[in-house]
């Protein structure tokens, strides 16, 4: 009920930094201070940045493996079932389960499903496609996040979030600018 009185809901506080070094340092400090609902935004991948904020997601790998396994079983199953069970052809008494010939379609379906699940799981785990996200409400973010800007955002859902105290913490990290992100 309390939210109704507020003029606009706050998604979080965003600070802009000059380069990957400053941003990683800031992310490390904020994480060490106990914040967990945090994210950083960069125009190019920065190694160690997600790890500095305690993120280490290895689910994509598992989806790749699952996709490969399903593709392998499905591909071989398809060959075996069609060639040996549903439509058996006796060619000079050769075995119906001529598995060496089935290796190639099996290999291809293994790769296919593994690749599709890799790409698909990466997008789904990232919550993409996403038509709206509050960070784009910040003008500087819209203008530079995909070209030159390095941003750090602390979300208001974080239990430690307090507008004044969080702002003071970010200011202590010498950012270029701090802005409030409307939800």
């Amino acid at each position, binding site marked *: 009920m309390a939210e109704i009185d507020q003029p606009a809901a706050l998604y979080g506080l965003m600070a802009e930094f000059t380069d*990957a*070094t400053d941003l*990683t*340092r800031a992310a490390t400090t904020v994480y060490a201070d106990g914040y967990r609902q945090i994210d*950083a*935004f*960069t*125009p*190019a*991948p*920065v*190694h*160690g*940045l*997600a*790890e500095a*904020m305690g*993120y*280490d*997601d*290895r689910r*994509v*790998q598992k989806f*790749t493996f699952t996709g490969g396994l399903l593709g392998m079983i499905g591909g071989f199953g*398809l*060959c075996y079932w*069609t*060639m040996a069970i*549903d*439509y058996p*052809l006796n060619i000079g008494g050769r075995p119906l389960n*001529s598995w060496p*010939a*089935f290796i*190639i*379609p099996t*290999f*291809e*379906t293994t*790769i*296919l499903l*593994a*690749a*599709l699940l*890799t*790409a698909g799981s*990466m997008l789904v*785990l*990232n919550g*993409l*496609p996403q038509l*709206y996200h509050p*960070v784009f409400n910040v003008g500087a973010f*819209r*203008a*530079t*996040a*995909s*070209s*030159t800007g390095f941003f750090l955002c602390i979300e208001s859902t974080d239990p430690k979030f307090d507008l004044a105290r969080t702002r003071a913490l970010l200011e202590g990290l010498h950012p270029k600018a701090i802005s409030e992100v409307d939800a």
Partner: protein
Amino acid sequence: MLDHAKESVPGARFLAPGHNFGSITDKISGIITGRAPFSWFIGFLIGFSILQLLLVSLTYLVFKGTGIWGVNNPVGWGFAIINFVWWIGIGHAGTLISAILLLFRQQWRTSINRAAEAMTVFAVGCAAVFPIFHTGRPWLAAYWLFPYPNTMALWPNFRSPLIWDVFAVSTYATVSIVFWYIGLIPDLATMRDRAKSPVVRRLYGLFSLGWRGSAVHWQRYETASLLLAGLSTPLVLSVHTVVSFDFAVSVIPGWHATIFPPYFVAGAVYAGFAMVLTLLIPMRAIYGLHDFITERHINNMAKVTLVTGLIVFYGYCMEAFFGWYSANEFEAYMILNRMQGPYAPYYWALIFCNGVVPQLLWSHKVRTSVLPLFAVCMAVNVGMWLERFVIVVTSLHRDYLPGSWGMYYPTVWDWSTFIGTMGLFLTLFYLFIRVLPLISIFEIRALTPAAHAKGDTHHG
């Protein structure tokens, strides 16, 4: 300071000095947001005109049937398979650059991988035209080629190399498109944020899927990219291996050879790198991309062309050797027929284009001066087409029984379809240059010191 940066960022030597995130973004996205140079319109017009030739040829083919082509008995495959293998082979360099060189941490791939992958996707598209239309009734091709439960309770034969080929090529096309698209997402976000017109912004926004460059997203993104590269690597090697099985699993002299898979894969990479150079040399000059595609890149690509060319030439020598050493009269006749028979000019032109001309690439001067290099690459493009012509036609036209020998002459429709696919390729490539960043912007950014956190040695 500069020295420190160069040391800590291994890829920095593949980028002209003085670039930062802003200049890289401006330069590459400027190709799209700026006005197209006059030569773009000329090139597009040429490509689009040739594309009409393909449309006319295919319409007439569907109307009349494959009898308009020169295929006959005994040469039942002709241009359709020659051009199919030629185009598929060209595609391989794109995957090699985007996947294998990524796994080997070859950072010079960064500025050429996007264009090379585009080349792969378009080349596979051009290749697909031939087998699909060779069926004569392409609207039925799906039913002949893909396994699905049908009312006649029939299945494709999984023991046949042709169905292996369907699986290999369709998987290759799908994975190449997925890999290319995933690689484009962050750059599409850049284009979204730089677009001036709201319609264009919405279009790029839609295809960028709402990418915002989150560190958590980047982490999964990079994992997925590496995994896709790891999956594409055996895939690309398998594709031309399977294409070679179309030949090697048969019992035709000149086809039934164990050397075919590696020889075909090397030939594919060789043809592909020559085509990448054929495309990039003019593109680099037109758009002034010398800062990103440096002399070092051109030199490295020329080296790969030379090495794979030598493997291919070794293959030709081995074919001749096997013809003699097999002590089999049909094998021996096959190679003599290639050298002295009615198609001998094709064979010797092939040896000249693929065996003699590439030796010029031993010279550093040739590798780094664009005009001679471009000429060598054109010879390779022609040579690799001749190779497929020689393999397909000379083996089929005179096999075991002299009574069933014959000749193969391509018709005007064979040529118009082949040339027409070049129009399709050029049209797609010119459109690509105009709407998508032809160099991966975010990967080039990652080559600069600003993208690397200092004191972060344990991750490098």
